[in-house]
């Protein structure tokens, strides 16, 4: 009898999501296989033989991979440091990481426009100390996108890792040390393996986030397109709805494949199972 209440309570939300999200998404995906009233894979074929699109796809993947690696390499030691702090210091550093995470992505990308521009702080400083003679072209390049995306997503991997590392029983580390392991060995043999599931989840968040981010590439990437800005361009500027739907489907497939693969990897490394 109780179950009937459950369905009744869930129904409004479910109906809402079905009408306004699930159906539009399914119709968008479905529409990519139909052209002039007949089934076709032409839309996909058209993209995968187009060097311009392949270049955009490749740039997007490169930018996302580099961003994820940088976030992991920078985030891991910092998260470890934070997780070892006394509660007060830990809360302060966590709060300082969460604050940028909650701040508008437009504001955060804009801050890098000030810093990376031809007459921005970074170029001015490098010129002043004589390290460079000509201002560097950083803004409106893939490098600028990577810097902006690392800035955007580093807090995400930091707080995920701190959450995981906090739950590692300090007695396990102490045990390793009392059995003769040095602090570094204990870190390598205990902390690192126990953090891997968190690291994988954090990496999924960063990788998928970078792959699908719109604001940062739109503001910092200049003419360099990534897949999300290319989708927008096709839909709004070029009014090419079929191409935009194909790109949207490709984006979703990549996202779901990445999430599924990495979730499987995370489950495999989970020491509790």
């Amino acid at each position, binding site marked *: 009898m109780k179950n009937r209440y*459950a369905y009744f309570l*869930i129904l409004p*939300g*479910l109906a809402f999501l079905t009408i306004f999200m699930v159906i539009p998404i399914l*119709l*968008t995906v479905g529409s990519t296989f139909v052209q002039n009233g007949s089934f076709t894979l032409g839309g996909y074929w058209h993209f995968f033989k187009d060097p311009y699109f392949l270049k955009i796809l490749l740039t997007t993947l490169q930018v996302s991979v580099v961003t994820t690696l940088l976030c992991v390499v920078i985030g891991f030691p910092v998260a470890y440091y934070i997780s070892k702090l006394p509660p007060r210091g830990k809360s302060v550093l966590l709060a300082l990481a969460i*604050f940028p995470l909650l*701040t508008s992505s437009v504001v955060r990308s804009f801050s890098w426009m000030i810093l990376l521009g031809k007459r921005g702080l970074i170029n001015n400083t490098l010129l002043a100390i004589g390290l460079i003679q000509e201002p560097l072209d950083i803004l409106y390049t893939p490098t600028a996108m990577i810097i902006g995306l690392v800035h955007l997503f580093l807090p995400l991997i930091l707080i995920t890792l701190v959450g995981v590392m906090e739950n590692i029983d300090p007695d396990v580390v102490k045990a390793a040390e009392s059995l003769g392991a040095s602090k570094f060995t204990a870190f390598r043999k205990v902390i690192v393996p126990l953090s891997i599931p968190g690291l994988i989840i954090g990496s999924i968040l960063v990788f998928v986030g970078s792959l*699908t981010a719109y604001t940062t590439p739109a503001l910092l990437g200049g003419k360099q397109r990534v897949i999300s800005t290319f989708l*927008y361009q096709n839909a709004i500027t070029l009014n090419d709805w079929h191409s935009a739907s194909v790109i949207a489907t490709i984006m979703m497939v990549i996202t779901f494949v990445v999430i599924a693969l990495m979730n499987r990897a995370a489950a495999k490394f989970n020491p509790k199972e």
Partner: protein
Amino acid sequence: MRENNRGLALFTGLVYVFLLGPLVIIAVSSFEPGSILKFPPSGFSWRWYANIFDVEMFMSTFRTSMAVSLLGNLFALLLGVPAAYALSRYSFRGKEMLNAVFISPVLIPGIVLGFAMLKYLIVAYHLPIYTALLIGHTVIMLPFIIRVIASSLANFDFSVEEAALSLGASRLHTFFKVVLPNIRSGIIAAVLIAFLESFNNVDISVFMTGPGVSTLPIQLLTYVENYFDPTIAAISVLLMIITSILMFLIERLMGLSYFTKR
């Protein structure tokens, strides 16, 4: 080991300079008296803060953003609270799948969701842009509302509810008098988190602009592409102040643990 810790502390410090430095630089350069944004600023002036209130498009898009985020929040609560309650309280067939459906708006790339909504809500279903914008924001707020409230319900002892029911209280009455007061802080936190998510949203809103309809982040995005005066820096500072107030409230209500749990 001391040395090692000091090295790590220094590295952590540098990383935080990277994270927060750019935001501090925006804040400082917002006081630039001249009409070109630069750092360090050439003087001190409130001029660009005053300018925000003179530019009608900032004020009108701010009003739209507020309306959409608040009204969408209300809709998301009306749809999400019963769903979160049912998902936490009962076990039934298809629960896992329903859970996944309710979380899916955060898994689907925002830009894809925005495009699909433009294509069907506005073009195919002929909904007015404003309505579509409101629906889009309700959809993206729903997972946050459900997740936060469900985690709040996870700490609620449902036997208290059983007791009230067995004493003859009606289900609805029990919900409002027994369950709701116990998860009040969770609900407020859910509202604040969903609000931030919606208020800062670009991916959905960027597809839903039209004559007289646009949100503040989209207006900022367009402005930044064309002008480089310190108005944006001044608005950024105001947005950061709002963000920190909301973050402080969320911390008071449920601690920062919400953010570290995955």
